[in-house]
C-alpha cells in the first residue's frame, strides 16, 4: 500500500546530502575530565562499605532523636548526613565528635533543640587502584587505565549521539535549501496545525494554559517568549515537511517502504499514548499522516547512519 502513495509536496531536483560540507559545524571531541572524575567517584562510592562508628564525623549517616517546640526538630527518630546541612547547620556542626548515646542542646536558629545520637554509620570509600578495579569487574576492565578508557568511550558515544543529531538537522536543512522543492499548501497547513497542537501540548505540560492565559503569563511560566517558542516549533514542523520530501525520494530509490504492520504498530502507540480507540486513532493519524512522518524519519535515519559511520571511523 505505502509503495503506491505519493506526497503532495514534491521535489523538482534533489541535492546529494553527502556533498553537504559539515566539517566546520561541529566541535571536535574532548574528554570531559571533570565528568570523568565524577564518574570515577560515583563508581568508588557504589563499591563502598558502610560500617558502624562510635563517633560522628562529617559525611556520616546519623540517626538522632530530638526534642523542641518546633515540630521540625521534634522527632523520635530522624536520619541525616552530617555536614550536608539540609536538616540544620547548628545541629549538624554540634554532632561532629559526638558518641552514640550522647546528648546535647543547641539553638537551631532561634529554636532550642535537645538531641541524642542513636546510631552512626560511616561510608568507607575504596581507593582507585588496579586491584580494586579488577575486583569490581566493570565491563571486564582490570586496571584503572582500562576503566578510564571505557568511561571515555561512553563520553564519546554520547558526544557522537548528540553531534549526529544536530548535524543531521543541519545536513537535512542544507540539502533542502540546495534542492528544489515545491511544498503543497495543504501539507503546509497540516504542519502548521501540527505545530500549533504540539506547542500547546508542550505549554500545558509546563503548567500553563495556552487557551486562557495571555502571552505574557505563558512566557513567565515557560521561561521563554511564547510567540517565539511557537514560531520555533512551527519552523521545526515546516523543516520536517522538506525532510519528508527528501525522505520520499530516498525511499523511492531504496524501495524500503513502510509496511502495513508498521502502520498498525504506530496506531497502537497512538492508542496507548492518547488513551483512544483504534477508530479514533485512525481518524487522528491517517495512513497519509503516517507515511509523511515515515518519509521524514527515513530522511533523518539515512543521514544519521551516514554520519554515524563517519564518527565511528574516527580515532578518539
Amino acid at each position: 500500500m505505502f509503495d503506491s502513495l505519493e506526497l503532495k509536496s514534491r521535489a523538482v531536483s534533489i541535492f546529494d546530502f553527502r556533498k553537504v560540507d559539515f566539517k566546520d559545524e561541529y566541535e571536535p571531541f574532548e574528554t570531559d575530565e571533570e565528568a570523568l572524575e565524577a564518574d570515577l567517584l560515583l563508581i568508588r562510592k557504589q563499591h563502598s562499605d558502610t560500617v558502624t562508628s562510635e563517633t560522628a564525623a562529617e559525611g556520616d549517616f546519623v540517626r538522632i532523636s530530638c526534642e523542641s517546640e518546633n515540630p521540625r526538630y521534634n522527632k523520635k527518630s530522624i536520619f541525616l548526613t552530617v555536614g550536608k546541612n539540609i536538616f540544620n547547620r547548628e545541629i549538624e556542626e554540634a554532632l561532629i565528635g559526638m558518641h552514640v548515646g550522647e546528648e546535647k542542646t543547641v539553638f537551631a536558629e532561634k529554636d532550642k533543640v535537645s538531641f541524642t545520637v542513636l546510631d552512626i554509620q560511616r561510608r568507607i570509600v575504596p581507593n582507585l587502584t588496579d586491584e580494586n578495579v579488577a575486583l569490581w569487574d566493570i565491563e571486564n576492565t582490570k586496571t584503572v587505565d582500562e576503566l578510564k578508557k571505557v568511561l571515555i568511550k561512553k563520553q564519546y558515544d554520547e558526544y557522537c549521539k548528540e553531534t549526529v543529531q544536530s548535524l543531521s538537522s543541519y545536513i537535512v536543512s542544507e540539502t533542502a535549501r540546495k534542492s528544489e522543492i515545491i511544498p503543497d499548501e495543504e501539507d503546509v497547513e497540516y504542519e502548521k496545525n501540527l505545530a500549533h497542537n504540539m506547542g500547546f501540548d508542550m505549554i500545558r505540560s509546563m503548567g500553563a494554559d495556552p487557551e486562557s492565559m495571555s502571552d505574557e503569563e505563558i512566557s513567565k511560566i515557560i521561561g521563554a517568549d511564547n510567540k517565539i517558542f511557537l514560531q520555533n516549533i512551527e519552523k521545526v514542523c515546516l523543516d520536517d515537511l522538506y525532510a519528508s520530501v527528501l525522505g520520499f525520494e530516498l525511499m523511492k530509490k531504496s524501495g524500503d517502504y513502510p509496511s502495513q504492520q508498521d502502520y498498525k504498530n504506530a496506531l497502537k502507540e497512538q492508542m496507548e499514548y492518547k488513551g483512544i480507540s483504534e477508530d479514533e486513532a485512525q481518524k487522528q493519524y491517517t495512513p497519509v499522516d503516517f507515511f509523511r512522518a515515515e518519509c521524514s524519519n527515513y530522511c533523518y535515519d539515512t543521514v544519521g547512519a551516514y554520519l554515524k559511520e563517519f564518527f565511528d571511523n574516527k580515532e578518539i
Partner: protein
Amino acid sequence: MSINVATNENYRDLIKDGFVIVDYFTTTCVPCKMFSRVLEELTLDYPFVNIVKVNITDYPAIGKENEIDGVPTVKFIMNGEEKEKVVGLMSEDEVIEKISEYYYA
C-alpha cells in the same frame, strides 16, 4: 537510600510508608537518563530516602492513574500522601531542597 523498581503489583506498597521520591520515566527520554544519574548520586549521600522508579512505557496504568503527561515527572510522597509533583528535569540541589522541605517537615 534504596532504589526500587515499581511494577503494577508492588507500586502501592512501595509508596505507602515514609518519605519516597517517585521517578516516572521512559527509557527513550534523554532528560530521564540525566535525572536517573542525579538520583543515583543522591542515593549515595542520603541512604535514608527511598526512591521508586516507574517505567511508564512498561506500566502505562500507573502513569495514567498518576496523571503523568510528560517525563520525567517526580512525585514527593510522605506516608502515601502526595506532597508535590514536578514535571521536568530537576537538579540535585532542587531535589535536596524537597528532601529538606518534606522529609524533615
